[in-house]
């Protein structure tokens, strides 16, 4: 179904209002608790949809330029507002450009998530920021958040995260191509969460008891799997995504929350290694327990939401610890049996580009070949990029190792 039609149907059938949400990290359970439909805006890919892209210089990433063109061209008018998470300089600039100097006249909201370690200041701040956002969204939603509904939303999203984790973690046992799998996963960017959960569970029914994928397993890391043709190219070349670290996908599936007291104390001591938890990808957050309460005891859903925020895998848009990210990537590669690493970056995307040398060093030291494919949010994968992916997969199939 077309997204616009879906948004209209949600409004007509359920009275549900909707928000365009810019990448990457945003408090989706909070939006769900407010009965707001989140429709994520990753560009969209392809040529800009209006001349407004020219208001941003060509050295600004295509995600921001295309989003400005989309919003200013009236293509998002079906939604009732827009939420701009504080992801990077480009999206931060887009938020003020579109709302202060023209391009988006409907209600605009910001979610300025903290950067840095899990520390007392960040926990207090994110709680206040979430409360502030909830208060700002309430008039649009036509309702305030109550604890019971927030707890329900957290449980719902925990189930979604568990299902997504099961699909990605069991990738080798899944009878789906990568384009098929990612189509299901990415429909969560705009479907109402309960519908998305149903689709995920249906997909998970296809998990076989033993591995069925015959291609070469690859770890993929990057911003967003666009153009989707990169996945098809990978499959066509005899490889598949065995582990996912896309900001849009794998990096948004929580890991078990850290003990906040331990992390905070370590921060005060200036230790940098404590943040990496068990490095288990995608175990869902339990809606109970934590923050000094006994496991299973009822707890403050706002505290659970804060825990949820701090439970994601390392992402350069959020955290200062590059070593923690490298350990996480190594762990992903080891558990999935990946034989190579595909780094899929968007041109001018500073958070991702800064980590490329460390990724290269990390995996080449372990004998795992790395290929970097850079794109500009094209609608179709370029022939040049497809050739790189094919050559990489061919080299892996032939048993290639990094020098």
């Amino acid at each position, binding site marked *: 179904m077309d997204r616009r039609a879906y948004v209209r149907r949600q409004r007509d059938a359920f009275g549900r209002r909707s928000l365009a949400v810019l990448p990457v990290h945003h408090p989706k359970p909070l939006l769900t608790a407010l009965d707001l439909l989140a429709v994520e805006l990753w560009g969209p890919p392809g040529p800009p949809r209006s001349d407004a892209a*020219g*208001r*941003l*210089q060509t*050295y*600004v990433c295509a995600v*921001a330029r295309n989003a400005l063109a989309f919003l200013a061209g009236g293509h998002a008018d079906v939604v009732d507002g827009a939420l701009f998470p*504080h992801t*990077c*300089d*480009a999206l*931060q*600039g*887009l*938020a*003020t*450009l579109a*709302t*202060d*100097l*023209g391009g988006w006249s409907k209600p605009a909201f*910001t979610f*300025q998530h*903290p*950067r*840095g370690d899990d*520390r*007392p*200041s*960040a926990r*207090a*701040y994110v709680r*206040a*920021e979430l409360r*502030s956002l909830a208060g700002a969204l309430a008039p649009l939603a036509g309702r305030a958040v109550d604890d019971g509904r927030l707890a329900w939303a957290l449980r719902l999203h925990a189930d979604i995260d568990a299902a997504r984790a099961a699909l990605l973690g069991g990738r080798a046992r899944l009878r789906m191509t990568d384009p098929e799998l990612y189509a299901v996963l990415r429909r969560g960017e705009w479907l109402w969460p309960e519908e998305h959960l149903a689709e995920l569970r249906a997909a998970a029914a296809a998990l076989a008891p033993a591995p069925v994928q015959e291609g070469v397993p690859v770890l993929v890391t990057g911003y967003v799997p666009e153009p989707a043709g990169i996945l098809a190219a990978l499959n066509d070349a005899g490889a598949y995504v065995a582990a996912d670290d896309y900001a849009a996908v794998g990096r948004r599936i929580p890991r078990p929350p850290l003990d906040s007291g331990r992390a905070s104390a370590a*921060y*005060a*001591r*200036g230790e*940098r290694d404590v943040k990496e938890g068990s490095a288990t990808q995608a175990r869902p957050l339990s809606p109970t327990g934590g923050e000094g309460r006994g496991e299973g005891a009822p707890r403050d859903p706002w505290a659970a939401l804060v825990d949820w925020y701090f439970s994601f895998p390392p992402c*350069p848009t959020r*955290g*200062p*610890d*590059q*070593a923690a990210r490298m350990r996480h990537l190594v762990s992903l590669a080891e558990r999935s049996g990946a034989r190579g690493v595909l780094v899929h970056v968007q*041109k*001018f995307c*500073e*958070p991702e*580009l*800064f*980590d*490329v*040398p*460390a990724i*290269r*060093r990390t995996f080449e030291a372990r004998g795992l070949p790395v290929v*970097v494919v*850079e794109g500009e949010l094209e609608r179709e994968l370029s022939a040049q990029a497809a050739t790189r992916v094919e050559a990489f997969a061919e080299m892996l199939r032939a048993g290639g190792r990094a020098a």
Partner: protein
Amino acid sequence: MILRRVQYELAGRAVGPLLLRLEAWQRARARRGRAGRPSPFGPPLEATRKLKELMSLHYLQGRWADGAVPVAWVTSGFPVELLRPLGFHVVYPENHAAMCGVQRLVPELSDAVEREGYSRDLCSYPRSDLGSIATGKTPAGRLPRPDLLACCTNICQTVLYWYRALAERFGVPLVLVDAPFVYGEAPPHHAAYVRDQLEEAVRVAERVAGRRVDPHELVEVTRRAKEGARLWGECLATSRARPAPWTGFDGFFHMAPIVALRGSEACNAYYRLLLDELRDRVARGVGGVREERHRLLWDNLPMWYAVRELSTLLAERGFSFVAASYTSAWAEAGVQVDPSDPYGSAARAYTHVVLNQDLRHRLDGLRRLAADYACDGAILHSDRSCKPYSIGQVDLRERLAAELGIRVLLLEADHGDPRAWAREPGENRLAAFMEGFA
């Protein structure tokens, strides 16, 4: 350790000053008897010699800092007042990268890190800095190894990515002060968050330095930082006079102490000296440009490698840069610190730097500068390396031109990497821009 400390103190107090005096004497001797070339600029500022001494001494002493005193590498927007009472020798990689830009070292340094996989699309400051670490090449002779990295995101998020790479490389603690962007008014929980982080950062810094912050010393450093920012602001304000006693391009170099030595008495003493000279030039009608006919506003960082050639091109036609949003930023934020509340006021001041505020604020600031300094034109440097500064400039150009009736040029280049500056087409655009004033 003791020997190292002796070397450090000697470099700062005896050897450094001696070497600098010798170098100055050699330069003066070489100049003697040489006929001066005709210049479109007014007589050079006497204070420039002192500026060179001050900054050279800072970097010279830095060569012996590691092992002698704790060393912190700090972003320009970090509240350094909080580190000074702990005795840190502070290095500003941005300032160092600007020096690399002036000396046109960036392509070579960048090539070194591009080979490691860093993209040329990344800001040229970190490329220069990381390249300098990789190659050992630096105009400063040698940079001391850091014991602490201190980063504040109020100027851009790039510094966060840059410093996390440094932390990985050096294996030292990184304290991060995350400053939420200000859309309109900053809500109270944002200020509280920054304040809390400052206190957390100081605890880490204390552990690294092995001593506690003396509250009295903190008050004194904060007072000096505020005074330094005030003095710097007054130096800039002298350009409201006609002719402006110096150019905005001069300002780019003379801002080094307020960036790198903020909170020190040496910084303030320097600006008192500079201010006296500028006021004297105003009183005598001496301009930074010999024949000032048009007054311009500059937005964004300078093109460090082309400051002299651009300023000459403009000055030859009577154009003087009298105001710059970049140099003004250091005066605006610094005066907001309050010695009676070092943490709370630093949180407010450092959250409200120009790059951490929305485009309405940017536009208001540019309008105000253009009006206060009676500018009849503006050049907005569309800087490939500085996205937070450059995003919005297309709209700012149109608004400034329409609302103020001034000519505005958007000029694309890069603050550090000359490979991004198309010199011929760029100078053609400048020539056409200037012809429009005739």
